[in-house]
Protein backbone atom coordinates (compact mmCIF):
# COMPACT_ATOMS: atom_id res chain seq x y z
CA UNK A 1 0.00 0.00 0.00
CA UNK A 2 1.42 3.36 -1.01
CA UNK A 3 1.66 5.91 1.76
CA UNK A 4 1.52 9.54 0.89
CA UNK A 5 3.99 11.65 2.81
CA UNK A 6 3.99 15.35 2.09
CA UNK A 7 3.85 18.55 4.01
CA UNK A 8 0.08 18.16 3.92
CA UNK A 9 0.13 14.80 5.69
CA UNK A 10 2.77 15.68 8.29
CA UNK A 11 1.10 16.77 11.49
CA UNK A 12 3.66 19.26 12.82
CA UNK A 13 1.63 20.05 15.89
CA UNK A 14 1.68 16.38 16.84
CA UNK A 15 5.48 16.20 16.46
CA UNK A 16 5.86 19.29 18.61
CA UNK A 17 3.57 17.80 21.27
CA UNK A 18 5.54 14.53 21.40
CA UNK A 19 8.82 16.44 21.70
CA UNK A 20 7.41 18.62 24.46
CA UNK A 21 5.90 15.79 26.47
CA UNK A 22 8.93 13.54 26.18
CA UNK A 23 11.57 16.25 26.41
CA UNK A 24 13.29 14.49 23.49
CA UNK A 25 14.06 15.46 19.90
CA UNK A 26 12.64 12.67 17.79
CA UNK A 27 14.39 14.01 14.67
CA UNK A 28 17.63 12.62 16.09
CA UNK A 29 16.58 9.02 15.39
CA UNK A 30 18.55 7.55 12.49
CA UNK A 31 16.56 4.31 12.31
CA UNK A 32 19.23 1.87 13.44
CA UNK A 33 16.74 -0.41 15.25
CA UNK A 34 18.89 -0.86 18.35
CA UNK A 35 15.89 0.05 20.52
CA UNK A 36 13.83 -2.88 19.23
CA UNK A 37 16.80 -5.23 19.49
CA UNK A 38 17.09 -4.36 23.18
CA UNK A 39 13.34 -4.48 23.83
CA UNK A 40 12.15 -7.49 25.87
CA UNK A 41 8.60 -7.09 24.55
CA UNK A 42 9.56 -6.76 20.87
CA UNK A 43 9.08 -10.44 20.02
CA UNK A 44 5.41 -9.95 20.78
CA UNK A 45 5.10 -6.50 19.17
CA UNK A 46 3.63 -6.04 15.71
CA UNK A 47 5.28 -2.66 15.28
CA UNK A 48 8.79 -2.20 16.61
CA UNK A 49 9.90 0.95 18.44
CA UNK A 50 12.06 1.98 15.45
CA UNK A 51 8.97 2.16 13.24
CA UNK A 52 7.14 4.16 15.88
CA UNK A 53 10.00 6.64 15.79
CA UNK A 54 9.67 6.90 12.00
CA UNK A 55 5.93 7.43 12.15
CA UNK A 56 6.48 10.13 14.75
CA UNK A 57 9.08 11.85 12.58
CA UNK A 58 6.52 11.97 9.79
CA UNK A 59 3.85 13.23 12.14
CA UNK A 60 1.57 10.30 11.41
CA UNK A 61 -0.76 10.91 14.33
CA UNK A 62 -3.54 8.67 13.02
CA UNK A 63 -1.28 5.73 12.31
CA UNK A 64 0.24 6.00 15.79
CA UNK A 65 -3.24 5.92 17.30
CA UNK A 66 -3.80 2.52 15.66
CA UNK A 67 -0.61 0.74 16.76
CA UNK A 68 -0.28 -1.09 20.04
CA UNK A 69 3.42 -0.59 20.75
CA UNK A 70 3.03 2.05 23.47
CA UNK A 71 0.55 -0.21 25.24
CA UNK A 72 2.85 -3.22 25.02
CA UNK A 73 5.83 -1.29 26.40
CA UNK A 74 6.84 -2.17 29.96
CA UNK A 75 8.90 1.01 30.53
CA UNK A 76 11.98 -1.09 31.16
CA UNK A 77 14.32 1.55 29.72
CA UNK A 78 16.39 -0.99 27.75
CA UNK A 79 15.88 1.11 24.61
CA UNK A 80 16.80 4.27 26.49
CA UNK A 81 20.15 2.95 27.67
CA UNK A 82 21.07 1.54 24.27
CA UNK A 83 20.03 4.21 21.75
CA UNK A 84 23.21 5.44 20.05
CA UNK A 85 21.56 8.82 19.45
CA UNK A 86 20.92 9.31 23.14
CA UNK A 87 17.14 9.41 22.77
CA UNK A 88 15.25 8.45 25.90
CA UNK A 89 12.87 6.19 23.95
CA UNK A 90 10.97 5.16 27.11
CA UNK A 91 9.94 8.82 27.46
CA UNK A 92 8.77 8.88 23.85
CA UNK A 93 6.62 5.80 24.55
CA UNK A 94 5.19 7.57 27.60
CA UNK A 95 4.32 10.58 25.45
CA UNK A 96 2.54 8.32 22.93
CA UNK A 97 0.49 6.80 25.79
CA UNK A 98 -0.30 10.12 27.41
CA UNK A 99 -1.77 11.59 24.24
CA UNK A 100 -4.50 8.95 24.62
CA UNK A 101 -4.76 8.77 28.42
CA UNK A 102 -5.10 12.54 28.69
CA UNK A 103 -8.31 12.34 26.68
CA UNK A 104 -9.67 10.57 29.74
CA UNK A 105 -9.46 7.17 28.06
CA UNK A 106 -8.49 4.15 30.14
CA UNK A 107 -6.46 1.42 28.51
CA UNK A 108 -7.40 -1.12 31.16
CA UNK A 109 -10.49 -0.94 33.29
CA UNK A 110 -9.53 -1.57 36.93
CA UNK A 111 -13.05 -2.68 37.84
CA UNK A 112 -12.95 -5.35 35.13
CA UNK A 113 -9.73 -7.06 36.18
CA UNK A 114 -10.30 -10.63 37.38
CA UNK A 115 -11.04 -10.73 41.14
CA UNK A 116 -8.44 -13.36 41.87
CA UNK A 117 -5.69 -11.49 40.07
CA UNK A 118 -6.30 -8.29 41.99
CA UNK A 119 -6.32 -10.21 45.28
CA UNK A 120 -3.04 -11.96 44.67
CA UNK A 121 -1.06 -9.27 42.83
CA UNK A 122 1.44 -7.18 44.76
CA UNK A 123 0.44 -3.53 45.24
CA UNK A 124 3.41 -2.44 43.18
CA UNK A 125 1.93 -4.23 40.13
CA UNK A 126 -1.43 -2.52 40.52
CA UNK A 127 -0.04 0.94 41.28
CA UNK A 128 2.42 0.87 38.38
CA UNK A 129 -0.11 -0.64 35.97
CA UNK A 130 -2.77 1.92 36.83
CA UNK A 131 -0.25 4.73 36.58
CA UNK A 132 0.77 3.64 33.08
CA UNK A 133 -2.47 2.37 31.61
CA UNK A 134 -5.29 4.44 33.10
CA UNK A 135 -6.08 8.13 32.77
Amino acid at each position, binding site marked *: MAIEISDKTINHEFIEKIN*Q*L*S*GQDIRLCFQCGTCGGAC*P*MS*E*NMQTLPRRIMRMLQFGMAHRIADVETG*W*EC*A*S*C*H*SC*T*VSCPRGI*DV*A*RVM*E*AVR*LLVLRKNIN*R*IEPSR*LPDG*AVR*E*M*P*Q*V*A*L*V*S*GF*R*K*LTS
Partner: protein
Amino acid sequence: MKVSYYPGCTLKTKAKHLEDSALASLTALGVQVGELPRWNCCGAVHSLADDDLIHHVAPVRDLVRAMNEGSERLVTLCSMCYNSLARANLLMRHDEIKRKTINDFMNEENDYHGEVEVEHLITFLRDTVGWDNLRAKIKVPLSGMKIAAYYGCTLVRPKDVAIEPPHGRVMNEFVEALGAEAVDFSANTVCCGSYQVLAHPDVVVDVVGRIIASASDGGADALILSCPLCEYNLVKKQGELLQQQKIARKLPVFYFSQLLAMALGLGPESYRPDRNDAASVEFLRSKNFPVGSASVQP
Protein backbone atom coordinates in the same frame (compact mmCIF):
# COMPACT_ATOMS: atom_id res chain seq x y z
CA MET B 1 25.45 8.49 60.34
CA LYS B 2 21.69 8.15 60.63
CA VAL B 3 19.97 5.79 58.22
CA SER B 4 16.22 5.64 57.66
CA TYR B 5 14.47 2.64 56.20
CA TYR B 6 11.73 3.07 53.61
CA PRO B 7 9.56 -0.07 53.31
CA GLY B 8 6.95 0.83 50.67
CA CYS B 9 3.44 -0.59 50.36
CA THR B 10 4.14 -4.10 49.14
CA LEU B 11 6.61 -4.94 51.90
CA LYS B 12 3.90 -4.64 54.52
CA THR B 13 1.68 -7.20 52.79
CA LYS B 14 2.55 -9.39 49.79
CA ALA B 15 6.31 -9.07 50.24
CA LYS B 16 6.42 -9.48 54.01
CA HIS B 17 9.13 -12.11 53.54
CA LEU B 18 11.35 -9.46 51.92
CA GLU B 19 10.93 -7.11 54.86
CA ASP B 20 11.03 -9.64 57.70
CA SER B 21 14.15 -11.38 56.43
CA ALA B 22 15.99 -8.12 55.72
CA LEU B 23 15.20 -6.50 59.08
CA ALA B 24 16.06 -9.63 61.05
CA SER B 25 19.34 -9.88 59.13
CA LEU B 26 20.24 -6.25 59.79
CA THR B 27 19.62 -6.80 63.51
CA ALA B 28 21.84 -9.90 63.40
CA LEU B 29 24.51 -7.81 61.67
CA GLY B 30 24.26 -5.18 64.40
CA VAL B 31 22.99 -2.48 62.03
CA GLN B 32 20.43 0.04 63.26
CA VAL B 33 17.90 1.36 60.79
CA GLY B 34 14.72 3.16 61.85
CA GLU B 35 11.60 2.95 59.73
CA LEU B 36 10.75 6.33 58.27
CA PRO B 37 7.75 7.68 60.17
CA ARG B 38 4.60 8.49 58.16
CA TRP B 39 5.98 7.33 54.85
CA ASN B 40 3.67 7.22 51.83
CA CYS B 41 3.62 5.25 48.59
CA CYS B 42 6.51 6.24 46.30
CA GLY B 43 4.26 6.04 43.25
CA ALA B 44 5.98 2.86 42.02
CA VAL B 45 7.01 4.37 38.68
CA HIS B 46 8.82 7.60 37.90
CA SER B 47 6.75 9.97 35.82
CA LEU B 48 8.37 10.26 32.38
CA ALA B 49 6.42 13.23 31.02
CA ASP B 50 8.18 16.55 31.07
CA ASP B 51 5.12 18.50 32.20
CA ASP B 52 3.97 16.06 34.89
CA LEU B 53 5.30 17.26 38.23
CA ILE B 54 2.44 16.24 40.50
CA HIS B 55 3.51 12.59 40.45
CA HIS B 56 6.93 13.53 41.83
CA VAL B 57 5.37 14.96 44.98
CA ALA B 58 4.79 11.58 46.68
CA PRO B 59 8.41 10.37 46.56
CA VAL B 60 9.72 13.87 47.35
CA ARG B 61 7.57 13.98 50.50
CA ASP B 62 9.25 10.76 51.65
CA LEU B 63 12.66 12.30 51.01
CA VAL B 64 11.71 15.47 52.92
CA ARG B 65 10.65 13.33 55.90
CA ALA B 66 13.95 11.50 55.85
CA MET B 67 15.74 14.85 55.82
CA ASN B 68 13.60 16.13 58.70
CA GLU B 69 14.48 13.00 60.66
CA GLY B 70 18.12 14.02 60.32
CA SER B 71 18.88 11.00 58.14
CA GLU B 72 21.66 11.16 55.61
CA ARG B 73 20.49 8.02 53.90
CA LEU B 74 17.24 6.35 53.00
CA VAL B 75 17.61 2.61 52.45
CA THR B 76 15.05 0.65 50.44
CA LEU B 77 14.54 -3.07 49.84
CA CYS B 78 12.06 -2.96 46.96
CA SER B 79 13.75 -2.26 43.61
CA MET B 80 10.85 -0.20 42.31
CA CYS B 81 10.78 1.99 45.42
CA TYR B 82 14.53 2.41 45.05
CA ASN B 83 14.12 3.55 41.46
CA SER B 84 11.29 6.02 41.98
CA LEU B 85 12.84 7.56 45.10
CA ALA B 86 16.31 7.78 43.55
CA ARG B 87 14.98 9.37 40.35
CA ALA B 88 12.86 11.90 42.22
CA ASN B 89 15.93 12.67 44.31
CA LEU B 90 18.10 13.37 41.26
CA LEU B 91 15.39 15.57 39.80
CA MET B 92 15.31 17.65 42.99
CA ARG B 93 19.08 17.83 43.03
CA HIS B 94 19.68 18.84 39.42
CA ASP B 95 16.58 20.48 37.93
CA GLU B 96 16.41 23.94 39.43
CA ILE B 97 13.15 24.98 37.82
CA LYS B 98 11.19 21.84 38.64
CA ARG B 99 12.67 21.81 42.13
CA LYS B 100 11.34 25.29 42.78
CA THR B 101 7.88 24.45 41.46
CA ILE B 102 7.66 21.31 43.59
CA ASN B 103 9.02 23.00 46.70
CA ASP B 104 6.60 25.91 46.29
CA PHE B 105 3.72 23.50 45.82
CA MET B 106 4.56 21.59 49.03
CA ASN B 107 4.77 24.78 51.05
CA GLU B 108 4.03 23.11 54.36
CA GLU B 109 7.32 21.18 54.17
CA ASN B 110 10.94 22.28 54.31
CA ASP B 111 12.48 22.97 50.93
CA TYR B 112 14.33 20.00 49.56
CA HIS B 113 17.36 20.00 47.27
CA GLY B 114 18.35 16.33 47.20
CA GLU B 115 20.07 16.31 50.59
CA VAL B 116 19.34 12.64 51.34
CA GLU B 117 21.13 9.74 49.63
CA VAL B 118 18.81 6.96 48.41
CA GLU B 119 20.38 3.54 48.60
CA HIS B 120 19.33 -0.04 48.01
CA LEU B 121 20.13 -2.58 50.71
CA ILE B 122 22.38 -4.60 48.41
CA THR B 123 24.93 -1.78 47.99
CA PHE B 124 24.45 -0.82 51.65
CA LEU B 125 25.59 -4.36 52.52
CA ARG B 126 28.65 -4.00 50.32
CA ASP B 127 29.67 -0.44 51.21
CA THR B 128 28.57 0.01 54.80
CA VAL B 129 28.48 -3.50 56.28
CA GLY B 130 31.26 -4.79 54.01
CA TRP B 131 31.63 -8.25 52.49
CA ASP B 132 34.42 -9.27 54.90
CA ASN B 133 32.36 -8.27 57.89
CA LEU B 134 29.37 -10.12 56.45
CA ARG B 135 31.44 -13.22 55.71
CA ALA B 136 32.66 -13.28 59.31
CA LYS B 137 29.03 -13.43 60.54
CA ILE B 138 27.90 -16.26 58.29
CA LYS B 139 26.87 -19.28 60.40
CA VAL B 140 25.41 -21.52 57.72
CA PRO B 141 27.38 -21.04 54.48
CA LEU B 142 25.19 -21.77 51.48
CA SER B 143 27.86 -24.00 49.99
CA GLY B 144 26.77 -26.14 47.10
CA MET B 145 23.97 -23.79 46.07
CA LYS B 146 24.12 -22.36 42.57
CA ILE B 147 22.32 -19.05 42.62
CA ALA B 148 21.26 -16.86 39.69
CA ALA B 149 21.09 -13.24 40.84
CA TYR B 150 18.42 -11.43 38.85
CA TYR B 151 18.58 -7.62 38.78
CA GLY B 152 15.58 -6.89 36.57
CA CYS B 153 15.22 -3.29 35.35
CA THR B 154 14.89 -0.85 38.15
CA LEU B 155 18.18 -1.46 39.94
CA VAL B 156 20.17 -0.81 36.79
CA ARG B 157 18.16 1.48 34.49
CA PRO B 158 18.26 4.31 33.64
CA LYS B 159 22.01 4.77 34.03
CA ASP B 160 21.90 7.73 36.39
CA VAL B 161 20.28 5.65 39.14
CA ALA B 162 21.99 2.31 38.36
CA ILE B 163 23.31 0.79 41.59
CA GLU B 164 26.57 0.03 39.78
CA PRO B 165 28.18 0.47 36.34
CA PRO B 166 27.18 -1.91 33.51
CA HIS B 167 28.49 -5.44 34.00
CA GLY B 168 28.94 -4.83 37.72
CA ARG B 169 28.51 -7.83 39.96
CA VAL B 170 27.33 -6.62 43.36
CA MET B 171 24.58 -9.24 43.43
CA ASN B 172 27.04 -11.99 42.53
CA GLU B 173 29.46 -10.76 45.20
CA PHE B 174 26.60 -10.96 47.68
CA VAL B 175 25.85 -14.55 46.66
CA GLU B 176 29.52 -15.46 47.02
CA ALA B 177 29.76 -13.76 50.44
CA LEU B 178 27.01 -16.13 51.60
CA GLY B 179 29.14 -19.08 50.51
CA ALA B 180 27.07 -19.98 47.45
CA GLU B 181 28.15 -20.10 43.83
CA ALA B 182 26.98 -17.22 41.62
CA VAL B 183 25.65 -18.30 38.24
CA ASP B 184 26.18 -15.84 35.38
CA PHE B 185 23.28 -15.73 32.97
CA SER B 186 22.63 -13.40 30.07
CA ALA B 187 19.04 -12.49 31.05
CA ASN B 188 19.98 -11.12 34.48
CA THR B 189 18.88 -7.58 33.56
CA VAL B 190 16.09 -8.46 31.11
CA CYS B 191 12.70 -7.03 32.09
CA CYS B 192 10.16 -9.54 33.49
CA GLY B 193 7.27 -7.76 31.73
CA SER B 194 6.54 -5.61 34.78
CA TYR B 195 3.06 -4.06 35.01
CA GLN B 196 2.15 -5.56 31.64
CA VAL B 197 0.97 -8.51 33.73
CA LEU B 198 -2.24 -6.46 33.99
CA ALA B 199 -2.75 -5.86 30.26
CA HIS B 200 -0.74 -8.57 28.50
CA PRO B 201 -0.38 -11.49 30.92
CA ASP B 202 0.42 -13.93 28.08
CA VAL B 203 3.34 -11.85 26.85
CA VAL B 204 4.68 -11.85 30.40
CA VAL B 205 4.58 -15.68 30.35
CA ASP B 206 6.85 -15.63 27.26
CA VAL B 207 9.26 -13.10 28.72
CA VAL B 208 9.49 -14.97 32.03
CA GLY B 209 10.07 -18.19 30.08
CA ARG B 210 13.13 -16.66 28.43
CA ILE B 211 14.56 -15.42 31.75
CA ILE B 212 14.04 -18.78 33.46
CA ALA B 213 15.55 -20.65 30.50
CA SER B 214 18.62 -18.43 30.64
CA ALA B 215 19.09 -18.97 34.40
CA SER B 216 18.43 -22.71 34.16
CA ASP B 217 20.80 -23.12 31.21
CA GLY B 218 23.44 -21.45 33.36
CA GLY B 219 22.96 -24.28 35.85
CA ALA B 220 21.14 -22.34 38.58
CA ASP B 221 19.41 -24.20 41.44
CA ALA B 222 17.52 -21.08 42.45
CA LEU B 223 17.11 -17.42 41.58
CA ILE B 224 17.22 -14.37 43.86
CA LEU B 225 15.76 -10.91 43.33
CA SER B 226 14.64 -7.83 45.22
CA CYS B 227 11.52 -6.66 43.41
CA PRO B 228 8.04 -7.83 44.48
CA LEU B 229 6.69 -7.34 40.96
CA CYS B 230 9.47 -9.46 39.45
CA GLU B 231 8.85 -12.03 42.19
CA TYR B 232 5.15 -12.20 41.38
CA ASN B 233 5.74 -12.50 37.63
CA LEU B 234 8.54 -15.04 37.88
CA VAL B 235 6.75 -17.30 40.37
CA LYS B 236 3.25 -17.00 38.96
CA LYS B 237 4.13 -17.26 35.29
CA GLN B 238 6.40 -20.25 35.88
CA GLY B 239 3.27 -21.98 37.13
CA GLU B 240 1.63 -21.30 33.77
CA LEU B 241 4.75 -22.40 31.87
CA LEU B 242 4.63 -25.64 33.84
CA GLN B 243 0.96 -26.15 33.00
CA GLN B 244 1.71 -25.51 29.33
CA GLN B 245 4.55 -28.04 29.63
CA LYS B 246 7.06 -25.44 28.49
CA ILE B 247 9.27 -26.11 31.52
CA ALA B 248 9.85 -29.40 33.30
CA ARG B 249 10.00 -27.90 36.81
CA LYS B 250 9.84 -24.53 38.48
CA LEU B 251 13.07 -22.77 39.35
CA PRO B 252 12.89 -21.77 43.05
CA VAL B 253 12.70 -17.98 43.57
CA PHE B 254 13.71 -16.11 46.74
CA TYR B 255 14.24 -12.57 47.88
CA PHE B 256 17.97 -11.96 48.30
CA SER B 257 17.36 -11.15 51.95
CA GLN B 258 15.83 -14.58 52.59
CA LEU B 259 19.13 -16.24 51.68
CA LEU B 260 20.93 -13.67 53.83
CA ALA B 261 18.84 -14.56 56.87
CA MET B 262 19.38 -18.28 56.23
CA ALA B 263 23.14 -17.88 55.96
CA LEU B 264 23.20 -15.80 59.14
CA GLY B 265 21.70 -18.80 60.92
CA LEU B 266 18.30 -17.22 61.60
CA GLY B 267 15.17 -19.33 61.77
CA PRO B 268 12.23 -19.68 59.39
CA GLU B 269 10.31 -17.04 61.35
CA SER B 270 12.90 -14.63 59.88
CA TYR B 271 13.26 -15.94 56.34
CA ARG B 272 9.55 -16.74 56.08
CA PRO B 273 9.39 -19.74 53.72
CA ASP B 274 5.65 -19.78 54.46
CA ARG B 275 5.41 -16.98 51.87
CA ASN B 276 7.18 -18.91 49.09
CA ASP B 277 5.78 -21.29 46.50
CA ALA B 278 6.02 -25.08 46.81
CA ALA B 279 9.05 -25.42 44.52
CA SER B 280 11.04 -22.96 46.63
CA VAL B 281 10.00 -24.60 49.92
CA GLU B 282 10.94 -27.98 48.51
CA PHE B 283 14.35 -26.62 47.56
CA LEU B 284 14.94 -25.43 51.14
CA ARG B 285 13.91 -28.83 52.48
CA SER B 286 16.32 -30.56 50.10
CA LYS B 287 19.10 -28.37 51.50
CA ASN B 288 18.06 -29.21 55.09
CA PHE B 289 16.85 -25.74 55.99
CA PRO B 290 13.94 -25.73 58.44
CA VAL B 291 10.78 -24.54 56.73
CA GLY B 292 8.69 -24.17 59.89
CA SER B 293 5.00 -24.11 59.22
CA ALA B 294 5.38 -23.44 55.49
CA SER B 295 2.25 -24.86 53.94
CA VAL B 296 2.78 -26.10 50.45
CA GLN B 297 1.08 -23.91 47.88
CA PRO B 298 1.14 -24.70 44.17
